[in-house]
């Protein structure tokens, strides 16, 4: 599986920074940014040759779509997992298109039995083709549907139980949702199956007009680091990964965020 450590999302813009991290043992790469059959980015191939674990992270499969997942998208993930000898693949509990129109972002599902059935069917279709386990990531939602039948913990636990998928727990998403819904993020940690965690995402965000946005382009808030510590009191996850998707800060700032995550979790620093 994944080595016990802190990792970072590999992006072309910061590939030099990532390659120079002396203690780094795993990265994640956006699956749709790679070709399944053409050449892989040389900087990523170099990391693989150093024995780095590389996890393909899908963002466009639309596991929560009412329609079946596209077989070509599942095949893409499966092929990347093979080429990268990935320990697992991850995707989101979300939908990204409907009625033939792309939303361009991860959208929340109604927390209904009908939606659980749709996700479970798509996860099973995907698992049937993947050569490695699948980890599912709950998303940050700026709004909820009007007719939820289940709360967040029930919704997620039911999907995980029925699919036997692993959990990719994004603490920044948990923080964003709790802040925007006005509830306590720790309550959710107490009700999720933490033993199913494959790894954890940590990222920054910013508030606009009273709503917290999980942007991955802003600094890591102290409250998210506190959630790292709260999680580790309950269950120490196998690995934690910093996601940064743009507006890249100077290297010392990014290193300081990686160090802060390691310190909050009690892991060795990788910088």
């Amino acid at each position: 599986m994944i080595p016990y450590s802190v990792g970072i999302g590999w992006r072309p813009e910061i590939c030099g920074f990532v390659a120079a991290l002396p203690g780094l043992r795993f990265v994640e790469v956006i699956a749709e940014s790679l070709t399944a059959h053409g050449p892989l980015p040389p900087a990523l191939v170099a990391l693989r040759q150093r024995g780095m674990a590389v996890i393909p992270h899908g963002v466009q499969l639309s596991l929560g779509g009412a329609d079946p997942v596209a077989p070509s998208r599942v095949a893409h993930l499966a092929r990347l997992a093979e080429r990268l000898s990935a320990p697992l693949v991850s995707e989101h509990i979300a939908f990204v298109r409907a009625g033939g129109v792309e939303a361009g972002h991860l959208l929340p599902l109604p927390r209904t039995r009908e939606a659980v059935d749709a996700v479970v069917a798509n996860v099973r279709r995907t698992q049937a083709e993947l050569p490695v386990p699948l980890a599912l990531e709950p998303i940050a939602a700026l709004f909820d549907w009007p007719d939820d039948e289940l709360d967040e913990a029930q919704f997620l636990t039911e999907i995980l139980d029925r699919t036997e998928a692993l959990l990719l727990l994004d603490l920044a998403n948990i923080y964003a949702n709790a802040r925007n819904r006005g509830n306590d993020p720790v309550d959710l940690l107490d009700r999720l199956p933490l033993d199913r965690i494959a790894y954890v995402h940590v990222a920054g965000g910013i508030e606009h007009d009273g709503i917290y946005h999980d942007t991955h382009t802003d600094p890591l808030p102290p409250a998210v680091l506190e959630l790292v510590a709260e999680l580790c009191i309950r269950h120490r996850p196998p690995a934690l990964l910093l996601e940064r998707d743009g507006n890249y800060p100077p290297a010392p700032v990014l290193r300081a965020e990686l160090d802060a995550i390691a310190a909050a979790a009690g892991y060795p620093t990788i910088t």
Partner: protein
Amino acid sequence: MSRDLAARQADLVAALVADAPVPAGFDPLRVEAARAALLRKRAGGVLRHWPLLAAGLGDVWLSTFTEWARTRPPPGPLRDGWDLARSLAAAGTLPALAAEELAVREAGWRYDGVGEPRRRRLPALQRGGGAIVLQVAGRVHLLRRPR
């Protein structure tokens, strides 16, 4: 019984990216916040793929893009910027820097405005922003008149 999930998801996506009404029961302020966030994220993607389009428009880049994009579902950042650049070129308001960037793309790729752009196999000549762009065997040559 509510409408089925597929139809309700389609209604929500249309509200977020195609200027359709917010479906009943949703918090309109929150959906509007999500719509605005999607446009910001989308603009960021176009900025990465079309840096000279954004630079050429300068202060009005974000407002120009969001006004243009709010009724158009996102086709991905490459086509998004391409479509906007062509529409500005047709209106005669594409800045010279951006016109060169567009000419380079038009010389190297064939794009029908509907599907994914494909690399040209044959040589192509394009004009834009006071430059002439010549593409031969995948290599792009930019010939600029002295200004």
